[in-house]
């Protein structure tokens, strides 16, 4: 352990991993309560289009992915408010389109040698100091956004119609949440990658919902699951020389099954 922490890139990775998994865990709480899992998948994959656009235009792929994902997230929110198209149809169309555009952008740029594998599957060990700062600042902003509007988000998740009648600006806050979700997804791409980041938007909250009965406990368990799987995943991936994202997600899924089992046990009277 101490040997690991002596390495600067490892220290950075741990720092980023703990903060980012906390952010994802809190977002995950609402993703699960609002059944937004598929939106998470859609937004994460659309980040690929953003990364590719950055490569094509020669700007920072993280920045272009941010813009791209925020636009796609809000477009999904806007379309799913209309009655003509269901949410999952809208997501299915958008995320395919974003991926397709990504492939086209990469083709146009003629640069097949960019580290696409790193973006797709994550490489937290390669995180630079500068990226670390950006990612941490954005992560803290996302957390702050959720904390500030926590009770309104909770009300909307519980009963949207009554929240609206009670004067909660539901539409506005929905778009705000989708924006936060998009930011959370993009800043976590370095850690777990486009393909797997959506898993961390679902699993921590899902595991917590199996065992917790109050929202405070659910958020606590969600954070615990995310942090344990991230730090555990980092250590394991270092020693086993495996992709960090895959190990993290596997650990998280394992914790979900344990929580699922514990949840069953709670049901029978002692």
């Amino acid at each position, binding site marked *: 352990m101490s040997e690991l922490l002596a390495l600067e890139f490892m220290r950075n990775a741990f720092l980023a991993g703990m903060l980012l998994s906390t952010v994802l865990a809190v977002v995950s709480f609402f993703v699960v309560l609002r059944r937004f899992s598929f939106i998470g998948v859609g937004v994460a994959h659309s980040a690929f289009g953003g990364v590719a656009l950055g490569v094509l235009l020669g700007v920072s792929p993280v920045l272009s992915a941010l813009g791209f994902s925020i636009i796609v997230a809000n477009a999904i929110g806007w379309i799913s408010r209309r009655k003509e198209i269901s949410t999952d149809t809208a997501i299915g169309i958008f995320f395919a389109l974003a991926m397709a555009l990504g492939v086209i952008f990469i083709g146009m740029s003629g640069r097949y040698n960019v580290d696409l594998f790193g973006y797709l599957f994550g490489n937290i060990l390669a995180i630079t100091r500068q990226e670390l700062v950006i990612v941490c600042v954005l992560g803290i902003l996302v957390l702050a956004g959720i904390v500030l509007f926590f009770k309104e988000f909770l009300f909307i998740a519980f009963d949207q*119609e*009554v929240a609206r*009648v009670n004067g909660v600006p539901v539409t506005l806050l929905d778009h705000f949440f989708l924006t936060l979700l998009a930011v959370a997804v993009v800043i976590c791409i370095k850690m777990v990658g486009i393909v797997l980041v959506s898993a961390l938007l679902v699993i921590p909250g899902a595991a917590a919902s199996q065992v917790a009965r109050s929202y405070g406990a659910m958020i606590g368990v969600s954070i615990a699951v995310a942090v344990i799987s991230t730090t555990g995943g980092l250590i394991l991936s270092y020693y086993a020389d495996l992709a960090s994202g895959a190990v993290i997600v596997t650990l998280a899924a394992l914790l979900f099954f344990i929580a699922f089992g514990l949840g069953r046990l709670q049901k029978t009277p002692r």
Partner: protein
Amino acid sequence: MKPESQVKETHYVDLEDIWVAYDHKWVLQSVYFSCGAGEIVGIVGPNGGGKSTLLKVILGLVRPDRGTVRLFGEKPGKRGLQEVGYLPQISQAERFFPVSALDVVLMGLYARIGFFRRPDQKDRETAMEVLNRVGMADHAGRPFGALSGGQQQRVHIARALAPHPRLLVLDEPATGVDSVAQEDFYRLLAELRDAEGLSVLMVSHDIGVITAHADRIACLNVEIHYHGEAQACMIPENIARVFGRDLKVMVHDSRCATCFRRHSHE
């Protein structure tokens, strides 16, 4: 008699010539409706008659194709929504949700608490008080999802009552609630009307309840067929028949006579 304008000002709800269509079919046609301060207005009508739609128009959840809506004298949504307690017919509320009964009632107070602040001890006391009034104080700490359907309905009612609204909009509040609790609830409504000048709009299929507890009644089937005194709308011998199969005679009023059979002849 007060002059017209003054009468209007005291109206909490005023609908003029409201038209609403869904899928090219009129659901509300030229509806005029009002509810004054401190009165309980019952709304009756057949399934699909547009009762829930009428309530949503009043609350600004459905925008009418034509007509004007006034809530506390203004467009709905502009102001005053914090002074309305709403109980939807089919609650969209998640059944299994990590909140306690008390948490749900506290949600009713969020608008009053305002942004960036958390409920404090006083809010909790207020919420406990309302839970007590609907007979759910003993269940305050239980997970909402663990309550029975009727208990959940009572918690929803408590949430609507919590901020002491001036107007309560209740879409079939009795759903799932046992008869003892129903009686208590209607008594509570009358108490609040007399003590605080609360106005209540209440949709119900229970004609007995409406005639017993409403000050005025509106009979709605796409159009308003009757809007007036609850007592005058029914003579005693019809009340017995109301509970029979033929709902046609439920409202004894010439304007209302065909209300419940209208669509079957079209």
